[in-house]
């Protein structure tokens, strides 16, 4: 599925994605998700469309372990997050919720570029720039979680961790 790129900078923290001032909405995810990137990208929630891509720089998702950050990204219809690097807790949280977090050279992607992800082939086609970006294979454990539909589905299926 093709989608549009939303380009963000380096060091986007979970505080940027969904700040502590909305802590009280954490058990109301539809309402919480309206406040996604509210200060960083005003109007994001109203403009984003299903299947779009979130594109960051270095150390995406740094900071708090709040899983609500990847969850509100998912609820806003983002199909995958592309970044030069990810903070480790955020990276796990993405896959646990079935969101591909892809490490690639995002300098070559601009705001609004039309992208298409080919997960199995390890490539992203940038239809706007008419070029293809390749990325290293997703680690097998993460791939297994993704294929099972997230960690909850995995554990429901096996009643255990059967990742290797």
């Amino acid at each position, binding site marked *: 599925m093709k989608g549009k790129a939303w380009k963000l900078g380096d060091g986007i923290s979970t505080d940027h994605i969904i700040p502590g001032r909305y802590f009280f909405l954490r058990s109301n995810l539809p309402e919480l998700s309206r406040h996604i990137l509210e200060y960083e990208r005003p109007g994001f929630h109203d403009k984003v469309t299903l299947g779009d891509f979130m594109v960051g720089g270095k150390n995406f998702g740094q*900071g708090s372990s709040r899983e609500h950050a990847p969850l509100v990204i998912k609820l806003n219809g983002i199909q995958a997050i592309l970044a030069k*690097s990810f903070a480790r807790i955020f990276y796990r949280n993405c896959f646990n919720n079935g969101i591909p977090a892809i490490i690639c050279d995002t300098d070559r992607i601009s705001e609004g570029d039309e992208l298409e992800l080919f997960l199995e082939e390890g490539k992203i086609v940038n239809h706007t720039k008419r070029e293809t970006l390749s990325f290293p294979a997703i680690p097998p454990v993460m791939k297994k979680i993704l294929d099972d539909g997230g960690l*909850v589905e995995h554990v*429901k299926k096996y009643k255990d*961790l059967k*990742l290797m």
Partner: protein
Amino acid sequence: MGMTLAEKILSEHAWKEIRGGEIAVLKVDLAYVQDGTGPLAVRKLQEMGFSKVCNPQRTIFFFDHASPSPRFELSNDHAFLRAFADETGIQVSEIGQGISHQVVAEKWVRPGDVVIGADSHTCTGGALGSFATGVGSTDAAVAIALGKVWLRVPETIRVVVEGKLPVGVYGKDIILHLIGRIGAAGATYKALEFVGDTIESLDMAGRMTIGNMAVEAGAKVGLLASDDITQGWLNRMGRGKEFRKLSSDPDATYERTVPINARELKPTIACPHQVDNTKTVDQLGEVRVHQVYLGTSCNGRLEDLHIAAQILKGKKIHAGTRMIVTPGSRMVYMEAIKDGTMETFVEAGAVITSPGCGGCVGLHEGVLGDGEVCLATQPRNFQGRMGSPKSFIYLGSPAVAAATAIEGKIADPRKYL
């Protein structure tokens, strides 16, 4: 071939020898969530169909972020967590008992444990020689349900700190200096291990500050060997028998070594809006401060309060600046009341709030307004974290906090010591 401390602890929990880079499923000794990550973890447990948990005696729900609750939505979350704990026998640490990472260090964490917490600063427990790491709600739910977690065994970056710390320089300055040097992603996916004579002579409070902020360099864990000081801490907590002496083998393989000369360190400040944006206090220039915040999982311990009180004793907080003090736990609060530390703060004009995470997460008890500047002892200063996205957070030691409160601008504490 020798093993790092991380490899040793994780091998014990994987029932086989595992090395840096390998992925393994591990036994979890202690699992906890807090009131911000707990409700989602419980929903994930329910979604997975678990009505029982693996080890309720060593699973804890902490009510520390909204403590006490400032909103009915959060009161409902608390009720939801309490009900699930009642059904399953999970331990509850109620409002006012303190910050999860402080309370587990007092009551639960043992050297050699694998500790999983749904809070990024779970790595505080590394100060006791435990492999303590933060995860999200789903991973925590799985750890609670199955008593297991999967982890990639981290390679270790060895930080060697040597020499006597100058007066007015503390554990906080060591870790801020390191993060400024290696960057906020300088240790992503890695273990940081702190060794050297400076670390060996640091008290447990200083060690916990260092472990706490390992995540601010991206690390999975911030480990220290367990030694006589760890034993002394456990004795003080009535848990002396839980001590085990653990350290890396002399011939362990490290990814790299970062040397730090403690003699050259100065009071260090992280400037807005990144923890790795550090300067020494003398490089800073004049920064007017509206609020000083002393506390949090990073610097809410008795020793931290003592350092600040020593500077504030008999002085008044600067007009136009407010100071908030949040003890890290009920135990810290009690001791600080008994020894007169709290009296010093109140006399100086500070506000004392109940033990917990306080203002650090922007929820209550010191929320910043537009254009306001805060000097905080907390571990993190991202834009908007403490309230308005138009506010500014500087991070420093409890000594810097006290000196700043007196002068109303970020100040060098060394002249007060």
